[in-house]
Every structure is written in structure tokens, then in C-alpha cells.
């Protein structure tokens, strides 16, 4: 029973982090030309790539952690 509960929580996290991660990447490439232009202007626009990097690290980082958990590769206790 607890096994099933753990499994569902892992899959839940996978979806919870995965959807925003996919949305971030989709947005980045949908607005590719705009993103390049903003980054290329430099100066205070450096905040844009840094913000994107933090957001991706949070959501995609959470997704990848859950992914290895879901496929059964876990750290030794």
C-alpha cells in the first residue's frame, strides 16, 4: 500500500515540475527571436537570462530529480 502511495507521489511530482518546465522551454523557443534580442542588448537585461536560468533550474531540476526516482535510481540511505 505504502509502495503505491510513494509511487503516486513521485509521479505527481514528475507532473508538477514537468509541466512548468515544458512550458518554460516552449516559451523560450516560441519567442526565440525576442529572447535573443533582449539578451543581445546586454546591460540590465542580464537579469533576463539569469531569471530564466533560475526558473529552469527550479522546475527542470525538480523534474529530473523525480525522473530518476521514478525509474528506480535512488541514493543510498
Amino acid at each position: 500500500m505504502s509502495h503505491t502511495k510513494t509511487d503516486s507521489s513521485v509521479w505527481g511530482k514528475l507532473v508538477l515540475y514537468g509541466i512548468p518546465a515544458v512550458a518554460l522551454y516552449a516559451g523560450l523557443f516560441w519567442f526565440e527571436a525576442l529572447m535573443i534580442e533582449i539578451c543581445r542588448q546586454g546591460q540590465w537585461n542580464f537579469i533576463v537570462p539569469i531569471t530564466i536560468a533560475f526558473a529552469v533550474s527550479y522546475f527542470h531540476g525538480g523534474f529530473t530529480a523525480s525522473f530518476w526516482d521514478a525509474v528506480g535510481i535512488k541514493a543510498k540511505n
Partner: protein
Amino acid sequence: MDASSLNFIDLTLTNIAFLLFVGFVGGLVSGFIGSGGAFVLTPAMMSMGVPGIVAVASNICHKFPKALVGAIKRAKYGQVDVKLGLILGASAEAGVLYGADIQQGIKERLGDAGSNLYVSAAFVVVLGIVGTWVLLDAWKLYRTGTTNEEERLTRLAKWVHQLHIPGTMFYCKSAKAHISWLVTIPIGFATGMLAATIAVGGFVGVPAMHYVLGVPSLMATASELVIAFVMGLGGTIKYGWGGFVDIRLAMIILAGSLFGIQLGAIGTTYVKPFMVKVVMGVIMALVLFSRGFVIPVYLSELGWIAPMATETAQLLKNISLGIMLFALVSGAAIVLHALFSGMREHQMQHGMLEESAVAD
């Protein structure tokens, strides 16, 4: 240099797949040894037609979020000394700025060939000394059959622990000793300088934390991720201000590397500390060999030796890039092997314990 004059390349599916793969492998190695996955990315991107400065900037922009995720993961395993990482990171930042200034000075005086020669020579000298030391240490542990024993402090680390300079001491939990920041400043500075030069400060930072400060090797590799985060964030601000970051390239590499860094970090919970030295030593030796191949090319471009045929120069550059990729893949293969054999061993032990519990 003005960013508006630079081309941001069109991405093809092959380019994306290649960057995802190199990102994954690089992340795997970084998650395990704290750094060392990024050195191949700059030349790899340049081989796709990305201008050098954009390749460096995009590489740095993927490094700090990767290091952040890796550091958080390994902190969960109790391997990170955040305070030491931040203290070293502060002086590393100064080293990065100084190292970048030196690079720029050489580039202005000797052009691209001079700058490339300086980078390659730094690779050969640093990896020749540190890499040999790390590999010899790993070999000694293996030969004496002491790979399972707790790591011993070097004489230098014992001396550093005994050193007491009033007003400069702080407690380092990973080394379980009070250490003077007068000792950590040169280590951080050298780490930053190397990061600005060859993109892998950890090749100095990790061995220095272990052999000089007496930090256990697994904790040294984990704390290196904190330094990499600090340096990467500073570097991204610097290059981002100039408009050199190609966010698409950085995020594609990050997509692959976050899978890798999680796996590499998990790997550290299954291996003996000795394996860290093996992976680091092997990568260092192969990369040293790789850079050795291109030194004659740059010497010839500078006119310091006889001119070299264009085909020969290109061949040597390709061989060098090939060996670099091989170094990274070899490191990743050792990490994966160590991870899966460690998991198997753990499952067998777990199974035997359960069997004996049932029998009792």
C-alpha cells in the same frame, strides 16, 4: 567587442541533440566530482560556428544553475560545506576577474593564437602537476589495498590545522578544524583564475580542499559546486551585461546536464571516496594529452616555430577535440559503472540482511 556584431547561430536538430548529449555527460561528471564537465562545451560550441565569446558566456550561464541544483542535491546527502564553499567562492570571484583580465591582455597583445596557446599551456602545466598527484594518490590507495579505509590527512593539511593566526580563523565543519582564511584566499583565487582560463576551476579547487585543507574528497567535490555556483553567477552577470549570452544554447545544455548532475550526485552515495580521485585523475590526464596536441598549432600560428600546413593544423585540432570528448565520456562511463555496481552491491547486502532477519 559589441554583441550586436556577433552571429547567434541557427539551431539544427543535430546541434540540439549534440548539446543535450554533451550537457548530460558533462552534468554526470560534475555531479560526481564537482566540476570537470564544462571544459568540452566551449570548444564543442565553437566547432558549430558559435563565436568564442558567446560560447564561453553561454557555457557559464548553464553552469551556475547546474551547480545550484547539484549543490542542493548533495546537501541533502550531508556532503556540502556551504560556509567553506562561500568563503572560497568569494576569493574565487576575484580570481575569475583577474584571470579574465590576463586573458584579455594576452589576446590584445598576441591575438587569438596567443590566447589559445596560453589556455592550452595552462591546461598542460596545471593538469600535469595536479593530475599526476591525484592519479598517483589513487594508485597508491589501490596498490596498498586501503581504498576502504577512512581518508588520512596529508602532512600539509595537518600543518594547516595546527596553524593559528588570530583574527583570521573560522571553523570548517568538513575538515573538522579551525582554518585561517589566509590559507583559503589563495586556494579560492587560484580556483577562480583557472576557471577563467580553462573553464574548470575544480581541477585546482577540489584537490586543494582535500590535500591542503583536509576536507574529505566527497565533501570537497560537493562543496566545489557551491564555488562553481558563485563563480558562474558572477560570470553570467559579467557576460550578460555585455550581451554575449545565447540563452537558447545555455538552456539546451542545462536541459541535458540537470539529468546528468542528479545521477552523478546519486552516484556519490554508492562509491568509495577513492573513486572520485580515479575519475578526476583519468579526466585530467586525458585532457592534458588533448591540449598537448594543439600547442604546436598555436606556436606555428604565432610564428614561433615553422609554419604548419592548414590540413595538419585542422587534423591536430580535430584530434584534440576528439580526445576531449573521449575524456568526458570515459569519466562518465566510470561514474555510471561505479553507480550501478554500487547499487547492485547495496541491493545484494540488503537482500542478505532481509534473509537473515527472516531466518532469525
